[in-house]
């Protein structure tokens, strides 16, 4: 594949779970035999979602799309895969480059232990078979940011094969059901990253920065089990969460630590697969979904109009929301794979095969790595559901929003309120405010302690829930006041004096005899009007439930 030419555009927001604009294959037609709420553990190989064309014609066929992803994740390590130069996102050009990275003659690759461990951890987390022996190869192509003229990769025998990635897709009427789906993983391999090209079209030249050349990458190849943009985006998001939980990659798409290429084709179900195109330059999860859906529709339209699909590489242009051909007049690339002559096979051990008296620095024990795997997102979600009694969908939201889980757990730690109350306030009120103002959790004006204090006030019935919402709004203004201060300043405490409340109810009933009559006639709903009036009179300081109770008592007497 020709080296990607990418300019990093802006810092995309993390795409939150479940909302994709337009073309969602799961909204158009819900999978038949729809599974019930909250499926756990059972992954369903759901019926392949189908697309209908825009203008139905007679004899119209349904189309099915096939999407395969190649994901490159930059390994989180101090130094590069085969050399001791530093891995860092921004640094002066060519300052993190060793003689080997610049491919000067006489240099040799030396494998970084941390990168191998990262690959094994990732393979284990994705249920792969770890190959105890894997091999390195050279993949040859010419490009200015690949100084050696070849990339060291693992084409013949990669380090991990045959795994699976389970992700949850939102479906159902309110997008609130979570359906687990699985995509098979063909293989995971270690390979080198290339340098960066900056194109200066004005002066007809390209500027090359080799800081990134030689950084370790994990290439995760997914089988073409995906069928639309939403599935692809959700699967990639789940992979991101897994890599971040493992610590093997920071997987930040905006910083280029996670890159995705998509192979897309369409066909009629039952017929052979169609010609596929490759789509590149996808640097956020949202664009990934958009690009895939656009390309699927483009191919359908092309074929419906009697055209044909070329096996080509296309680039996604996010401003225009479309894919365009990167005209490749060279024809199909021949990479002339050959074994890397400077590296022996990579041999991994497990508890049974570990050679006695071996230098621990020089051997990698798969079983030991398996034991030290951290908690994976799916397990975390299960734990949240069990521990706090929340819905599975809620656990997805908590994990999908950066920093939200930590925020939630800090509130839980400091408050006496019930976990369900905390869940509701964090996912509805708190998250709602964040989304409205497009803020990240880290930018929130409300701290976990503040929310915890507020929930304590609510829990102890010091204030009503309506008052609590008011306090929250005040807290959001970032004036530095605590909930307690706001409550006393605005006099939002619940009225303790039942007698005074009864008086108020009485006078309200006297002031609105018509309403009382309606009630007595048998229209029970009208009581809400009275409750509202009393509430207003108390400036929201009375518990509506208590008001209702008093009124009903008075009416029945």
């Amino acid at each position, binding site marked *: 594949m*020709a080296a990607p030419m990418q300019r990093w555009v802006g810092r995309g927001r993390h795409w939150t779970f479940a909302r994709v604009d337009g073309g969602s294959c799961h909204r158009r037609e819900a999978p038949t035999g729809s599974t019930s709420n909250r499926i756990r553990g059972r992954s369903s190989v759901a019926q392949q979602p189908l697309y209908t064309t825009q203008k139905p014609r007679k004899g119209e066929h349904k189309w099915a799309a096939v999407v395969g992803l190649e994901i490159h994740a930059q390994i989180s*390590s*101090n*130094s590069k895969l085969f050399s*001791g*130069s*530093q891995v860092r996102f921004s640094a*002066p*050009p*060519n*300052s*993190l*480059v*060793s*003689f080997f990275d*610049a491919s*000067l003659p006489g240099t040799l690759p*030396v*494998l*970084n*232990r*941390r*990168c*191998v461990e990262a690959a094994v951890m990732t393979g284990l987390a994705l249920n792969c078979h770890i190959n105890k022996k894997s*091999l390195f190869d050279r993949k*040859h192509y*010419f*490009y*200015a940011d690949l100084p050696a003229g070849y990339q060291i990769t693992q084409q*013949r025998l990669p380090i991990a094969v045959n795994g699976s990635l389970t992700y949850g897709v939102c479906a159902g009427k309110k997008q609130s059901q979570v359906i687990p789906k699985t995509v098979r993983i063909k293989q995971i391999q270690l390979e080198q990253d290339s340098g960066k090209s*900056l*194109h*200066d*079209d004005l002066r*007809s*030249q*390209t500027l*090359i*920065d080799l800081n990134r050349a030689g950084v370790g990458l994990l290439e995760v190849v997914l089988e073409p089990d995906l069928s639309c943009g939403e599935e692809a985006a959700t699967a990639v998001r789940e992979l991101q969460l897994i890599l971040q939980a493992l610590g093997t990659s920071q997987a930040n798409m905006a910083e280029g630590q996670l890159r995705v290429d998509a192979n897309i084709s369409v066909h009629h179900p039952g017929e052979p697969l169609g010609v596929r195109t490759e789509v590149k330059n996808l640097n956020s999860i949202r664009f990934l979904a958009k690009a895939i859906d656009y390309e699927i529709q483009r191919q359908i339209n092309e074929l419906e109009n009697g055209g044909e699909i070329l096996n080509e590489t296309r680039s996604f242009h996010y401003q225009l929301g479309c894919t365009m051909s*990167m*005209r*490749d*007049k*060279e024809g199909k690339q*021949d990479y*002339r*794979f*050959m*074994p*890397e*002559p*400077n*590296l*022996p*096979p*990579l*041999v991994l051990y497990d508890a049974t095969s570990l050679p006695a008296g071996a230098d621990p*620095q*020089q051997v*990698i024990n798969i079983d030991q790595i398996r034991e030290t795997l951290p908690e994976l997102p799916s397990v975390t979600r299960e734990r949240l559901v069990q521990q706090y009694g929340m819905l599975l969908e809620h656990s997805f939201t908590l994990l999908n929003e950066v920093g939200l889980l930590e925020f939630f757990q800090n509130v839980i730690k400091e408050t006496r309120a019930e976990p369900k109350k905390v869940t509701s306030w964090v996912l509805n009120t708190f998250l709602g405010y964040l989304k409205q103002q497009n803020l990240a959790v880290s930018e929130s004006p409300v701290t976990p302690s503040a929310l915890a204090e507020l929930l304590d006030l609510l829990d102890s019935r010091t204030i009503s829930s309506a008052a609590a919402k008011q306090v929250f709004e005040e807290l959001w203004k970032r004036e530095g006041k605590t909930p307690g201060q706001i409550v006393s300043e605005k006099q939002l405490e619940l009225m303790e004096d039942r007698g005074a409340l009864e008086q108020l109810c009485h006078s309200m009933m006297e002031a609105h005899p018509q309403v009382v009559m309606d009630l007595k006639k048998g229209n029970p709903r009208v009581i809400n009007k009275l409750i509202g009036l009393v509430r207003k009179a108390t400036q929201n300081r009375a518990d509506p439930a208590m008001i209702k109770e008093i009124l009903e008592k008075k009416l029945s007497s």
Partner: protein
Amino acid sequence: MWSRLVWLGLRAPLGGRQGFTSKADPQGSGRITAQVIEHLERLALVDFGSCEAVARLEKAIAFADQLRAVDTDGVEPMESVLEDRCLYLRSDNVVEGNCADELLQNSHRVVEEYFVAPPGNISLPKLDEQEPFPHS
């Protein structure tokens, strides 16, 4: 047909069995078509400028073909001559880099600590075309 076999021979991955059962060809070296030459030139950026170069290539292939005289049925191919060695694992410490000035001295053109390269790949002209155009 023979040149096609030669082509297949070039393309087969090392370490894998060739797939055809013929042992050493009694005819000696075969002819390589112009198409193959052009493809090789494009891939490896070598210049087979003359008939003599092509003839030398054919002789080299014939020389290597002598390997086929050996019966390798049922024998596991080697991966490389290093396959019995231990692959050394380096610990993840930063010990190199910070030599931009030295590296940039190797470059013909430099702009503010960047290497300068022509835009994209300049593809070789086809036999029938004369003008090179930049690769996207």
